[in-house]
């Protein structure tokens, strides 16, 4: 999943973006309002973490302009202002969640995950496909109670395809959701990652969970519903 972090404190943005990347997200960082707005409008992020006190353009105005441009990306506001009227203002401006600084990193992570589930209209943190059980909170995939040791990129790909199962997802979409703007993925990195993922999750003798649609992309096929 790809996130946008708009935060002008260099120390805080570095710490948070590092933590989010280590958690398996692709993270783009903007340190001022205008850059943040441009990036939010230019890409389809899975969620945006937005500070309110930004140079150049404050967070609420950024959010307002984002919504007016038609972008429905889920936004989590990050700010040191905890007064009720500030929270109300933020939520009414179009934010989906509000987190007051200082915050526990795990809480930020959990709220981001909740926003992403909301985007894909999924309420449970535990999803099931065939014999596989995916715990989106713990970021694990297990079969018969045994956790499969998936590297973070493979897990991110699996989770993304799972949340969009039944839909063909193009390579470029996968790239834009799995890699941030700093990464320069090689042209076949998606195919390579799909190949590696199939090796880990497919059961010999059964059709692959991830199907290729030539010229279009990949699709996760299954009739199983989320538990």
């Amino acid at each position, binding site marked *: 999943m790809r996130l946008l972090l708009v935060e002008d404190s260099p120390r*805080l943005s570095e710490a948070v973006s*590092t933590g989010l990347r280590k958690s398996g997200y692709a993270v783009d960082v903007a340190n001022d309002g205008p850059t943040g707005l441009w990036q939010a409008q230019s890409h389809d992020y899975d969620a945006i973490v937005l500070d309110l*006190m930004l140079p*150049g353009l404050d967070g609420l105005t950024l959010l307002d302009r984002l919504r007016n441009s038609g972008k429905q990306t889920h936004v989590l506001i990050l700010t*040191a202002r905890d007064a009720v009227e500030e929270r109300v203002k933020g939520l009414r401006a179009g934010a989906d969640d509000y987190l007051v600084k200082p915050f526990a*990193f795990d809480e930020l992570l959990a709220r981001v995950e909740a926003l992403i589930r909301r985007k894909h209209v999924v309420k449970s943190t535990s999803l099931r496909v065939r014999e596989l059980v995916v715990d989106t909170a713990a970021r694990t995939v297990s079969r018969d109670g045994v956790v499969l040791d998936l590297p973070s990129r493979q897990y991110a790909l699996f989770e993304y395809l799972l949340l969009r199962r039944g839909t063909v997802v193009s390579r470029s979409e996968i790239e834009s959701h799995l890699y941030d703007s700093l990464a320069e993925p090689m042209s076949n990195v998606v195919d390579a990652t799909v190949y590696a993922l199939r090796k880990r999750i497919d059961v010999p003798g059964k059709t692959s969970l991830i199907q290729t649609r030539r010229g279009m992309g990949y699709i996760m096929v299954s009739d199983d519903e989320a538990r």
Partner: protein
Amino acid sequence: MSNASIRKRLIGRLLVGMVAISAISNVGLYLYLREELLEQYDEALLTEARAVAGMLSSEDIDEDLPALIDRSFPRMHLGAQESGFLQVWDDSGAVVLRSPSLAGRDMAAAPTAGRVDKPVVLDLTLPDGSAGRATTLSFQPPLDDETARASQPAQRTCVLMLGELREELDETLSHLALALSLSGGALTAAAVALVVLGVRRELKPLNEFSEQMARVDANTLAYRFAETGLSEELRPISRRLNDLLARLDESFNRERRFSANVAHELRTPIAELRSMIEVAIKWPPDEPGVARLHAGILEVAQRMSRLVEAMLSLIRLQQTPVPAATERHDLAELVVSAWAPHAALARERGLEQACRIAPGICVTGDRTMLEALLSNVLGNAVQHATPGTRITCDVALEEHAGVSLTISNATADLQPEDLARLGEPFWRKDAARTRGEHLGLGLSLVRDYAKALQIDSRFAMPKPGTFEVELRWRP
């Protein structure tokens, strides 16, 4: 001053006044009308008395005279059992004539007699106890032959008393008194009702005003009382209340802004520390990462330390009175000393310092505080001046106005409307608070240091793109 309500006091005083005025005027009117009535009554009595005296002056007094008088003056009611009465005494005091109405009720002695040109009217009590009012006249009866032969006509003088029982008069007067009392009472009652209703009605806007005021609290200070449609007396009150509310609103907003800003200033470095450390614990960094982490933690700690010191300085300046200092210091030396900590940053930003102050100009005050004051002014200039420009200092010496020091710098984004907020703690033109290391307390400290040192401070933009701080030491 009494705590009784204005309405009750107003009504009470108006009522007392109106009752008093009503009573006095009614009594006065009664007395006046009574006098008029008596005057007319007496005039009528006198006219009749003169007429009778005239008749008696020409007619012999004999037993037919009363009947003659009765017939001639029927309105005198001189007949038996009637209310008028007449009696004549001769100059020896003997009763020579009485009206039938006086049968058995003769007045024994002749009362003091008036003259035709100077009549006497008096109240008297008849022998049977009846009250009467009569006039007395002296007259000269017609001369008989003997008197005429004696040629002493002047010796015979009779006294005529003509009067009427007071019963009817008194009844009239009491009716008058009653009528005046009743009308006075009715008028007073009507006035009372009008006063009570009128005062209540006219003071109603005051009650409504008071109810509106009761609805204003700390959360509704943006409320303003309407000034149109109010009476002349309430309009200035409304205006002053609106001014007060505006000041309170601004003050509360300033406090809210300050609380929010303090929260932000304190929470942000804590959030930085927490996130840096949590991520490092979860995903231990490599060696260069550890070094960066330590450096970052140290920077944040230093910033928090500066912030806490600055806030404590502000609090101390506001709460602790500063004893008046008498030592004098060279201003040029103070400026040089205050500039030193900012020189490196000024070089980095390409700023030129043009503070050439001649030695020998002295100012009074605590040295440490003066240096802190000047350091904050110069520090603010260094941090906010447009890079590559000049920071200037100008000193003016005026005989009766003391020493004035003006420090100016170029500014790219400050506007005249920002001047009012410049002294507010944590206010910055750039809303983001994490750019650079300025705390947003510099000019608040300048204001408070200047106040503590009894120096007048002023922030101004003499022309677009130039910001200056003027400090004036009082002579």
